[in-house]
């Protein structure tokens, strides 16, 4: 919000430097994001009087002698502008002068003469007609006759002033105005506040027909209307125009300017309706009907819903409540009777409407943060005061006040000094507390250490001792806080718990296996699901959609991690990294039902991705098996399938008989579809694994019990089998275990294929360890081997090779 320093000074006597003021505002919670000096980049330009002027023959120039008083009484300046005349007061930039456009004035030869300066236009000084009449003319800015010769132009034009762009926190809607900030400044400078003049006199005239009705009081708790007549149309005085223009408002017409001025000064948006245009001279405040239309002052037609509050007359909408007036009730140069409006509209409703229509106005900005009923009253009074003092119109006695009955009384409550100090942890003296609160215009009665407070009506944010504590500390100064280290808190145990530690270990494990941790966004689009060729009925397509995505690319919550991994790999391939290993441990979001009724399951997935010439199914499998080993888990692998993984190089992974994920090589078609250069796709080998970490962590065994060796003899035997090539090693291994309960360890130690074995055959050699609750003898081992041989022969047609 923009605040002009000189305007602020109208309400409070500021006796500190601008820098100190900014510092103090910052300290009390009002960060000045930008301080703009209006006379910035204007130097050595003075009010000058043209003492003589003559045409410079053979040129388009005029030779002027300019008197700048103390700054030099006779300056020879050439100008091309032809609105200069003898006796004119003009801005004269002398040698060494600087202009906002970056120009620096030097003696300048023009034909055969040297000009020792420059006469300036309004534009060259960065100002327009709103600042001073004549600034917009095509030529030199001609100043009023009474401009004092030799005065610095920055001072003379009122540019020796600052605009503060202040950020206002959401709890302080009362500070969205010059007056609001002035209250704060008065409080911290401990100066009296000079309130604006709210007084006005009404004529005896009343209007017989005007009616104001508020149907939807929930959205409009307070509505004030006042009838004014004999409206005159003229330009506002310069001081008002300057203030409006600095804050971004163009000057239009005195009455319209007054409404904008009050918005800036008091923080209360106002509106003026041309009474002539109101059907039945009525104001009806109601929700719009679905599809109802209104053309707003910006000449755009808006289609409304019942969510939007509309100011209407008997027949039609005449204004979007709190946002913008209707074109049909606009003040025209012919308007003679006006109904002035000051109202409170429910802030979230204004916000919703403003957002839905994409219509952001200064009025809406204030209503959205919230106006208070005190401000509504002040706004109307101040507007009427200006109407009267500026002679804009006559003020009738027809005033309307429709209220939903919200209390307009001051909030009162008691606090104790000790309670306030208990929040802060320091002892602010009672007299300081009282002084601060009074400076902030609280009513304070002291009874011992109990303070009976009367809260100013504009401070809707103040409800209890905590709010008071904040008022105290921001005025008293945060530098008074004395850091303590939880002196009164109980000692507690802290740190990561078992599973949190395991998770960090899991991450570190994969780092040690050469994988880099990545972080990808949890949202993507349906294109990512298409990318991995999921069929229409794939469960992963059942996904949570955002109601308000910022872009279509991030419109659904991910249900599968692979696309994120594939995109990261593709990006790295693009960056000429020919190989790499990544992992991510993050959530997928799985809705239990659609449309969504309850929060979806957030499942932690450990996704691994590896690519490059040296990566194979088994290099990643090694990492996964090592992870299982490191965590005391037993993973088994079966042939699996996924729409995006190689049909012959995909495994489903099991632990404790539950599927915990899958591993496979990315399909050629998926690689083909990646947005990377064709040359880089050839032989691009991507291995992906997705492990259900939520499930895996349930299988961790936190309790470890040492089991001593039972001392019984074990026997190790080797078994070499010739098998059909398609027989799965894992199946054979399982069959061996099933055939012999004593086979406690079955490990493949050799495998090969060759011509001797025959076409379509392979050889697998297992080392089998037999153990039991007694010594395993050769006889026992022999009989177990016979059982195993029989099973592998019958199940797989295996031929046992002699070793």
């Amino acid at each position, binding site marked *: 919000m923009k605040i002009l320093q000189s305007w602020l000074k109208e309400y409070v006597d500021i006796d500190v430097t601008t820098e100190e003021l900014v510092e103090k505002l910052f300290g009390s919670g009002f960060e000045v994001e930008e301080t703009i000096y209006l006379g910035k980049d204007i130097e050595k330009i003075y009010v000058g009087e043209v003492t003589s002027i003559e045409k410079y023959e053979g040129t388009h120039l005029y030779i002027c002698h300019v008197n700048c008083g103390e700054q030099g009484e006779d300056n020879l300046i050439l100008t091309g502008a032809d609105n200069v005349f003898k006796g004119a007061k003009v801005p004269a930039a002398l040698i060494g002068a600087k202009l906002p456009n970056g120009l620096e004035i030097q003696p300048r030869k023009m034909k055969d003469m040297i000009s020792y300066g420059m006469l300036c236009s309004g534009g060259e000084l960065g100002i327009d007609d709103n600042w001073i009449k004549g600034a917009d003319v095509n030529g030199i800015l001609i100043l009023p006759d009474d401009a004092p010769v030799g005065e610095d132009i920055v001072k003379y034009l009122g540019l020796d002033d600052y605009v503060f762009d202040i950020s206002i926190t959401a709890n302080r809607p009362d500070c969205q105005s010059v007056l609001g900030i002035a209250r704060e400044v008065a409080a911290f400078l401990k100066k009296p506040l000079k309130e604006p003049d709210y007084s006005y006199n009404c004529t005896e005239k009343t209007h017989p027909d005007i009616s104001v009705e508020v149907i939807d009081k929930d959205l409009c708790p307070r509505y004030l209307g006042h009838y004014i007549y004999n409206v005159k149309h003229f330009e506002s005085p310069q001081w008002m125009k300057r203030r409006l223009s600095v804050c971004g408002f163009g000057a239009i017409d005195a009455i319209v300017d007054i409404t904008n001025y009050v918005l800036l000064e008091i923080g209360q948006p106002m509106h003026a309706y041309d009474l002539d245009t109101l059907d039945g001279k009525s104001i009806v405040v109601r929700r719009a009907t679905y599809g109802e239309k209104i053309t707003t002052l910006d000449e755009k037609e808006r289609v409304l819903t019942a969510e939007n509050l509309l100011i209407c007359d008997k027949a039609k909408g005449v204004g979007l409540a709190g946002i913008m007036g209707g074109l049909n009730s606009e003040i025209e140069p012919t308007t003679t009777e006006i109904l002035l409006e000051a109202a409170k509209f429910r802030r979230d409703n204004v916000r919703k409407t403003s957002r839905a229509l994409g219509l952001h106005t200064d009025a809406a900005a204030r209503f959205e943060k919230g106006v208070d009923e005190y401000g509504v009253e002040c706004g109307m009074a101040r507007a009427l005061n200006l109407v009267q003092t500026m002679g804009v119109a006559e003020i009738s006695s027809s005033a309307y006040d429709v209220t939903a009955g919200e209390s307009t009384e001051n909030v009162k409550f008691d606090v104790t000094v000790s309670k306030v100090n208990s929040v802060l942890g*320091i002892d602010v003296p009672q007299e300081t507390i009282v002084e601060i609160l009074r400076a902030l215009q609280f009513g304070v009665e002291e009874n011992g250490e109990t303070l009976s407070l009367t809260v100013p009506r504009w401070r809707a944010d103040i409800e209890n001792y905590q709010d008071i504590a904040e008022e105290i500390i921001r005025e008293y100064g945060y530098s008074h806080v004395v850091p303590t280290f939880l002196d009164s808190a109980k000692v*507690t145990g802290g740190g990561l718990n078992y599973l949190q530690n395991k998770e960090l270990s899991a991450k570190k494990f994969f780092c*040690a296996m050469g994988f880099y941790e990545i972080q990808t966004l949890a949202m993507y689009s349906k294109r990512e699901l298409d990318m991995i060729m999921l069929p229409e009925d794939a469960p992963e397509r059942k996904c949570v959609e955002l109601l308000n995505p910022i872009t279509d690319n991030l419109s659904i919550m991910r249900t599968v991690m692979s696309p994120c991994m594939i995109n990261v790999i593709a990006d790295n391939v693009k960056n000429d990294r020919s190989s790499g290993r990544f992992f991510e441990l993050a959530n997928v979001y799985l809705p239990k039902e659609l449309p969504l009724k309850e929060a979806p399951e957030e499942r932690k997935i450990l996704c691994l991705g590896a690519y490059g010439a040296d990566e194979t199914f088994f290099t990643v499998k090694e990492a996964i098996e090592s992870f299982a080993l490191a965590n005391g888990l037993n993973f088994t692998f079966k042939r699996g399938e996924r729409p995006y993984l190689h049909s012959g190089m995909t495994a489903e992974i099991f632990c404790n008989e539950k599927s915990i994920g899958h591993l496979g090589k990315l399909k050629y078609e998926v690689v083909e579809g990646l947005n990377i250069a064709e040359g880089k796709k050839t032989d691009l080998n991507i291995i992906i694994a997705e492990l259900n970490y939520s499930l895996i962590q349930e299988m961790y065994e936190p309790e470890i019990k040492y089991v001593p060796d039972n001392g019984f003899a074990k026997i190790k035997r080797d078994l070499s089998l010739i098998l059909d090539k398609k027989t799965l090693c894992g199946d054979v291994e399982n069959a061996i275990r099933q055939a012999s309960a004593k086979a406690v360890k079955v490990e493949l130690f050799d495998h090969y294929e060759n011509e001797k074995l025959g076409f379509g055959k392979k050889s697998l050699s297992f080392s089998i360890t037999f153990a039991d609750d007694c010594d395993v003898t050769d006889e026992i081992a022999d009989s177990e081997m016979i059982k195993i041989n029989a099973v592998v022969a019958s199940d797989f047609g295996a031929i046992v090779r002699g070793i």
Partner: protein
Amino acid sequence: MKDFSEIKEQVKAKIEEVKDNASLSEFWQSYLGKQGVIQGLMKEMKNVPPEEKPSFGKAVNEVREWAQGLYAQKQSQVKELELKARYEREAIDVTMPAMKRDIGNLHPITLIKHQMIDVFAGMGFEVFEGPEIEDDDHNFTRLNVLKDHPSRDMQDTFYLTEELLLRTHTSPGQIRTMDTHKPPIKVLVPGKVFRSDSDATHSPMFSQMEGLVVDKGITLCDLQGMLDKFVQEIFGSGTKTRLRPSYFPFTEPSVEVDVSCFECGGKGCSLCKGTGWIEVLGGGVVNKKVLENCGIDSEVYSGLAFGIGIERITMLKYGISNMGVLFRNEQDFLEQFKA
């Protein structure tokens, strides 16, 4: 008496010639084996007069023992030589590179997250991770962000339904903790949060760490004291904090916390934009309404809460100026965080 000096000379010369295991065993066979010269001397016993037999036998034994001694000595010499030769034979170029296996590392956000956790863990904070998909009640209402309050605008929210949303901050973790734990509470809630804005300084997803302490007699001074300790651990022992007023609906008073610039020590530099201070986090005294919303007696207990942007700390700590790089996952970037 038979003189064996001739044989002894022979043995002496022979053992000198022994250089390796093969000649060693040849020596054994020639002199000490069953067919050897010394064993052969015993065969001459039968030709020795009976009265000389004992002394002859003794003399042969002496020769044998003497030769065995020489043998044993040589044996260990040979072994030593052989090992020496083996070591020389097996010598490798130790400067050759080993088999390469790249070692990965954690993402910088994870690294910083855990550094932060470690600091607070030492103060007795537990870690709680709440859901990323929250309801309006936990994310807003019970944190005193009421339906019509403009502070809802402070955090542009991604909605899934009217009620369900992507959490905009980790603060709902406060509610979930207080719902299930009685004071004393010291908890950290790290996690991902989501807001619907995206530009050079904002990502629609980022990470926060919430901290909450609820106990008897907790004050604003404790907040600063605790955060002083935190910033000193993270940014260096000379780092100081500065509190300044701010607004969050769930704390009152609310503060922004700045740290003295660790780059220039507060003199003013490009990092702190000449101010000497860097904004790092927000916090405050827990609003009594929030305690009450969780059934905690605000007359007995008070609390403090803070929220830290993990990316912000990560960027400051590692000198990263563009937030986007954190989520681009480029190897050139990721590889640099071997800490």
